């Protein structure tokens, strides 16, 4: 699964650690999601969508 988390985070000028704090996960988890090595659970994806005020499918999508 692809995602735009890195671009969205950069637009807000947040570090990975900042985003990790807001999502209540570890920095390694944010890094693994951004590098598309790990697909987040649905609750975490919804939390990211709420944080960026975007529909979930605009952040996470197939190809």
């Amino acid at each position: 699964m692809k995602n735009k988390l890195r671009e969205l985070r950069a637009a807000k000028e947040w570090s990975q650690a900042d985003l990790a704090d807001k999502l209540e996960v570890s920095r390694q988890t944010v890094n693994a999601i951004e590098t598309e090595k790990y697909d987040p659970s649905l609750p975490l994806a919804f939390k990211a969508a709420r944080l960026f005020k975007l529909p979930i499918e605009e952040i996470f999508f197939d190809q």
Partner: protein
Amino acid sequence: MLYTGFAMNNKPNDPEDCINLKKFSWRTDTKVNYWLFIGIVVGLANELLFHTFVPPVNGVLREDFLTWPVGIRILIESVPLLAGLLWARSMARFILGMDELHRRITVEAWLFSAMATIGFFSIWPMLNAAGISGSVYYAAHFHGEFTDKPHIFLVLWLLLDKPPSIALTLFLLNAFYILGYFILIRRYK
């Protein structure tokens, strides 16, 4: 990382606080693995004091132990198992407080650890029959006699040349867990 109380489920819990030397935290490790240390130390003491039938203990303490009241003997033998169960409880609460990625890796690492430990104990009698403990036994000798001080090969032989002990089981579970964690975390780096 952050801990605000004795309970292990205060988020976030980072498994690397206990196994990665670069991030190691004695405080966290002690909270998670306190009962593991107790279990191994008491189990090892039980092994060496009550179940050893070779020099330098020479079986004297073991025979003496058998004259003790059965309740006391059962209590002494059960301490490492109880400690192991309390360790499992601490670890479960620690895992519940992890974020989803670390929780997944840790659970997979525990599965790896359990299977590896079962595999070790399954294959050990055959390795033993093939002469592995004999090799360790001869390595424990210096000039044909046992040394006065405990020797690593002697301790290894005492632990391995007999049915598996709870101390060895706890030790192997933790060792295979650490190995499994480092294998599995590589996927996400």
